C-alpha cells in the first residue's frame, strides 16, 4: 500500500502539451478513477505514474519518495493494460511469473505466488495454456494475475474492461471490486465507462484537455459538480442545459419553453442552468408546471423510459427519465415540472454558482 502524490505534473510530446499541471493526492489504499473524454490525457497520466513515459515537469512521489527518475519495476507498481498485453509465446504461468523471474525470485516462491493468484482468479486450470487458447475474460484474468503476483504497492488499470463484451464486463467489474476489498492496495483506474468509475472508485478525477476539472467522491461529482463540464460529463443520460435569456423584472429569466427566477446577489451573473433527466417530471398541462414542450421521441429500456421533449418556441430538447411503465405519446404537448433545488446554475465561463437558489415559476 502506498500514498501517491502528484504536483504540477506536465507532459509534452514535441510542442504539444498533453498534461498542463496536474496536482493530485491518492491516499493509501484508495481506489481512484480517472475519467474524461478521449484525448484528455488520462492514459498519459497513468503511463507517467507507471514510469513508461518521462515527466516533462513536476514532481511525483510514492510514500514521500520522489520517483520521477525511478524505472517502472523499481516503483513497486503493476499495470493492467487495455489489450491485456500477454506474452503470446509464454504459458499463463510464465506470463504471471515473468516479473518475478526478472527480479530473481526463487522458483518455489514464483510457483507458490502464481498458484495462489491463479486460484483466486479461477485460472488455476489454465496455467499451462498459451494466451491464444484462452477466452477474452480468461486473458483479462491472467493480465490481472500478472499484476497481483508482483504484490505491488500501487495497481494501475488502463481501461481494463473495454475489450470485453457487456456481460463479461459486469462480471469482471465485480471481480475487481472484490479484489479491491481483499487486497486493500492503492489503485488507479482509467476508464471511459462512468458506471465503472461510479461503482468502483472511492474518488473520481475528471480530466479535460490535460487539466483536472474536479476531484471528489462519485456522489459529490454527481450532486455538486463544480462546473458545466463535470456536470455534463458525469451522469447518463447527460444533464440537460438551458441557456438563460435576458433577465426581466424580479430576476426572471426566460428559458426555452418557460421562465425561471434566480434571485439576485450572486457572485457572478447566471448564464445557463442544468438539470438532470431524472429530476424532471412530465405532467399534464392542467397540472402545475414550469416548462412546456412536445414529446418528439421515446426510448423504452425496460427499467426506464427516456422521453425527448422539444421545448416550445425553441430547437432545444430535454431528456426526461421516467419509470419503465410510464407510457408517453409522441407529439403530445406536455408540461415539465421540477424541484428548483435540483437545478444547477452556471456562469458564462462555465463555473457553478453554488449560492444560486432558483425558483421555478409556473408556466403561463
Amino acid at each position: 500500500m502506498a500514498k501517491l502524490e502528484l504536483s504540477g505534473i506536465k507532459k509534452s510530446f514535441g510542442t504539444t502539451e498533453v498534461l498542463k499541471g496536474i496536482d493530485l493526492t491518492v491516499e493509501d489504499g484508495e481506489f481512484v478513477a480517472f475519467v474524461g473524454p478521449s484525448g484528455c490525457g488520462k492514459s498519459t497520466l497513468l503511463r507517467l505514474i507507471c514510469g513508461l513515459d518521462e515527466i516533462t515537469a513536476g514532481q511525483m512521489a510514492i510514500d514521500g519518495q520522489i520517483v520521477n527518475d525511478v524505472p517502472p519495476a523499481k516503483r513497486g507498481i503493476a499495470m493492467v493494460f487495455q489489450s491485456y498485453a500477454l506474452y503470446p509465446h509464454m504459458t499463463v504461468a510464465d506470463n504471471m511469473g515473468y516479473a518475478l523471474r526478472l527480479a530473481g525470485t526463487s522458483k518455489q516462491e514464483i510457483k507458490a505466488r502464481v498458484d495462489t493468484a491463479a486460484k483466486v482468479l479461477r485460472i488455476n486450470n489454465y496455467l499451462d495454456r498459451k494466451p491464444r487458447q484462452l477466452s477474452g475474460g480468461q486473458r483479462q484474468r491472467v493480465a490481472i494475475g500478472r499484476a497481483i503476483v508482483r504484490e505491488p504497492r500501487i495497481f494501475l488499470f488502463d481501461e481494463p474492461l473495454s475489450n470485453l463484451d457487456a456481460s463479461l464486463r459486469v462480471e469482471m467489474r465485480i471481480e475487481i471490486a472484490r479484489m479491491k476489498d481483499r487486497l486493500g492496495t492503492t489503485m488507479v483506474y482509467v476508464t471511459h465507462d462512468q458506471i465503472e468509475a461510479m461503482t468502483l472508485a472511492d474518488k473520481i478525477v475528471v480530466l479535460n484537455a490535460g487539466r483536472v476539472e474536479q476531484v471528489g467522491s462519485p456522489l459529490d461529482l454527481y450532486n455538486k459538480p463544480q462546473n458545466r463540464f463535470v456536470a455534463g460529463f458525469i451522469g447518463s443520460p447527460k444533464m440537460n442545459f438551458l441557456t438563460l435569456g435576458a433577465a426581466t423584472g424580479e430576476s426572471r429569466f426566460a428559458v426555452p419553453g418557460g421562465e425561471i427566477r434566480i434571485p439576485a446577489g450572486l457572485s457572478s451573473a447566471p448564464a445557463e442552468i442544468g438539470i438532470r433527466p431524472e429530476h424532471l417530471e412530465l405532467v399534464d398541462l392542467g397540472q402545475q408546471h414550469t416548462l412546456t414542450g412536445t414529446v418528439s421521441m421515446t426510448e423504452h429500456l425496460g427499467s426506464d423510459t427516456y422521453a425527448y421533449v422539444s421545448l416550445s418556441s425553441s430547437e432545444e430538447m430535454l431528456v426526461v427519465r421516467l419509470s419503465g411503465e410510464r407510457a408517453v405519446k409522441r407529439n403530445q404537448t406536455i408540461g415539465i415540472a421540477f424541484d428548483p433545488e435540483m437545478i444547477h446554475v452556471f456562469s458564462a465561463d462555465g463555473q457553478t454558482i453554488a449560492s444560486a437558489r432558483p425558483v421555478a415559476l409556473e408556466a403561463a
Partner: protein
Amino acid sequence: MLDLSSTTAKIVFGLTLALIGFFLFFPVYWMITSSLKADAELYKIIPTAFPQEITLHHYWTALTQGRLPTYLLNSLITSGSSAALNSLLALYAAYSFAKYDYFGRQPIMLLMLSAQMFPFGLLLISIYPLWTQFGLLDTQIGLILSYIVFALPVATYMLFSYFSQVPDELIDAARADGASDLRIFHTIVIPISIPPIVTVFLYSFMWSWNDLLYSMTLIVSDDKRTIGPGLLLTYLSDSNSDWGGAMAASLVASAPIVVAFMFLQRYFIQGVTAGAVK
C-alpha cells in the same frame, strides 16, 4: 458477369492452371528425367518423355568424380554464414528503426534502402577494388560480406514492417515487469518474430545460394568456388557434353533450398502472435 462456379469457368481455370503448371514444372521434370536416363537415351534425336531405363549413374559420377561436394560445402558455408549474419544484423537494425525515435533514423533508413536501387553489377565495380584493397578478394569472408551488402537492406525492411506491428503495449508490459530494452527484445520480441526471421534467413540464404555474378567475380580459386560458378564451369564449357551429369548436379544443388523450404514453410503461415493482444 462470370459465374465462378459454372462448368465453363472451372474448365477455363483448370486449363489456365495446367498451362502455368506445365511451363513452371516442365524444366524441373526434364531435369529429373534427364538425370535418370542413360547416356545413349539422352542423345537420341527424338527425346523420350520417360526414362526407358532408370540409372543413378550420373548422380554417382557427379558426387564422386567432380568437385561437386566441395562446391556444395563452400556454398553452404558462404550462404549459411551470410544468411545468419544478415538476419542477425537486420534484426537489431529493424528493431531500432521500428521502435526507437532518434535523430537521423529516417535518413539512415532511406539511405539503406537506396542501396537497392543500384544494379547488382554496378556495385560490383566498386566492391571489387575495395575488396582487393582489404585483401578480401578470393576469400569466403569477402564473398559473405558482399552478400550482406545486398541482402541487408531488404532483410531490414522486411523485419521493420513486422516489428512496427508488434504492439507497443507488449513492450510496455515487459518494461513495467522490469525487463531492460535488450531483454525485452531477446525474450519477448524475438520469440514472437520467428516466422519473419525464418523468412528473412531463407531469403538471404537463397539470394547467396543462387548467386553467380559475385561468386564468379570475387572467387578465383577452384577450391573456394560455390555451387553456381562451379556447375557452370564444370558442365557448360564448349567441350562438355555431359548433360546427364549437369542435370544430376543441378538437382543436387537445388536440394538444400527445397529441403529448407519443406521444413520451414510452416513458419510462414503460423500466426504466433495470436492471443497477444485483442
